[in-house]
């Protein structure tokens, strides 16, 4: 038996083959499209020549045009606000729910299961549903807020420049809470019960136990959940398309939607690609954070 065959049968070759298989698939179906976007960002792309990879090279011209666009600052700020706001609330609410359902009371598993309902919905359906809930004149949310005296005048969630981004964020938080809750529940269940019992014997309060046991033991889970949350939020597209389309007057425009809008509404594929490249840079950082967080993992 040759060395290679032996390695494939008994050694590291087997592992390499498995990872290579997956990576090759991803590089072909996700890596090449990524590369295509990077190449486009340096070119002037004619809308009727999408089929070819090479067009007139214009260097950094597209980048200059994007940064000079008056909308660029709004988009940058909105993207940060949307991502951090969504992840913060999804995570906090998800964690609170995970802790709540971690107390075994009758029906707790059953109730936790109900929350998955939000997650299994197609993004498009969620968007359409929230568009309807948040409508200004006939929306049920406005009606509830008005009748409980929380607001005096209806809020035009989709059409008021002060609320449009918040409207999409609300829907996105609703959509993302179950995902956070379930993954965090998994992490909570992995903490050995005897750690808590020992701490309780030592007289630690519930709050102390949370900060000295729960949080440290959950570090790798929290890192993974937040990293995935940021990446998923940066990809959120359906909700924008269904609720505000980035408007009015660009007030709820975020990077991923703007990039699509430039490419497929104004047919300026070069500038659309520039924003895609910017997003790649951001996700590089987020992915690095995730990989670091796996260092804290313990294996049985």
């Amino acid at each position, binding site marked *: 038996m040759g060395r290679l065959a032996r390695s494939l049968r008994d050694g590291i070759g087997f592992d390499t083959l498995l990872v290579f298989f*997956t990576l090759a698939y991803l590089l072909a179906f996700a890596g090449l*499209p990524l590369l295509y976007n990077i190449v486009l960002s340096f070119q002037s792309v004619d809308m009727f020549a999408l089929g070819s990879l090479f067009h007139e090279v214009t260097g950094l011209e597209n980048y200059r045009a994007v940064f000079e666009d008056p909308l660029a600052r709004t988009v940058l700020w909105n993207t940060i606000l949307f991502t951090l706001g969504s992840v913060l609330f999804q995570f906090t609410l998800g964690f609170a729910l995970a802790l709540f359902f971690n107390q075994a009371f009758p029906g707790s*598993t059953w109730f936790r299961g*109900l929350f998955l309902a939000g*997650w299994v919905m197609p993004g498009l359906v969620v968007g359409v549903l929230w568009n309807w809930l948040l409508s200004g004149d006939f929306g049920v949310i406005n009606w509830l807020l008005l009748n409980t005296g929380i607001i005096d005048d209806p809020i035009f969630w989709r059409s008021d420049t002060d609320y449009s981004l918040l409207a999409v964020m609300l829907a996105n938080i609703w959509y993302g809470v179950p995902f956070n809750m379930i993954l965090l529940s*998994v992490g909570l269940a992995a903490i050995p019960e005897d750690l808590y019992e020992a701490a309780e014997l030592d007289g630690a309060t519930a709050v102390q136990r949370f900060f000295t046991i729960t949080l440290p033991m959950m570090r790798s889970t929290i890192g993974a959940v937040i990293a995935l949350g940021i990446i998923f939020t940066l990809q959120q597209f359906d909700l924008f398309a269904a609720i505000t389309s980035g408007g009015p007057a660009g007030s709820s425009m975020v990077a991923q939607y703007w990039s699509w809008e430039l490419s497929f509404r104004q047919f300026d594929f070069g500038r659309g690609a520039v924003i895609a490249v910017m997003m*790649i840079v951001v996700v590089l950082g987020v992915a690095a954070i995730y990989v670091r967080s796996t260092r804290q993992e313990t294996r049985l």
Partner: protein
Amino acid sequence: MSALNENRKNAVLFTIALVIAAIYLFPLYWMYVTSLKTNSSIFAVPPEFLPGAPQWQTYALIWNESDILRYLKNSIFIATGVTLVTVIVGAGAAYVLARYRSIWIDIALFTILMLQVLPPSLMVTPIFVAFTSLGILEYPRIGTILAISAKTMPFFVILCRAAFMSIPRELEEAALVDGNSRAGAFVMIVLPLARNGILVAALLIFMQGFGEYVYSASLIADNRLQPASIGMTNYLQPNVVTWNAIMAFAATYVTPILAAFVLLQRKIVSGLTSGALK
């Protein structure tokens, strides 16, 4: 703590759970209620929280007019394909990435995560062009499955990696000592042990495939092969928006998966939380 106190505590927790679940599920409830209203009672002020006269014929209309059954079949076909491809291509990598701890593993993990940065709306043009020139779009649903799988893969790998981490290494090593090849130990010992975690992750991937829109919209030109997400947007045309019909379509679309989840949720949640995914 006395039994009485315990009971009272449980009752309080149960009530709180009931309230937050009701708040959380209200949007879904509103979808069902709206789908049963007439076109004019939809806009009534104050809104009707119970439909006075349920308009079941809206569902009949959707059923007859929009070929929803055909759309749902396509959705199931695509979701099944995505799940199979993702599991077959992804499980091995998840296992390896859980098994070792080195800079190369870090790099592989980083690359896998990185590759899911762009939303499908920005990936679809190059994929469309490449698939067309390779002839993959002769089989548009297969092409769509391949494209979606690249999107779901990183998530699956990360979930499954957690499942593989919970399997004691000694069991696998014992199998190797008994003369099994690595592949043999992987298939005979490790995969069965990680079964629950893989199944649950696969189920979540199935859901993503079931609801996918962007790739299906662009890669599948033939109406007869399109999934329900596309069928629904036909109801969102600028000139045919009727909220009750849209909500009825949405309800028909999601009710099967919701029902499956309510029936299976005990297994899913316990599969996720009690050991399988540690």
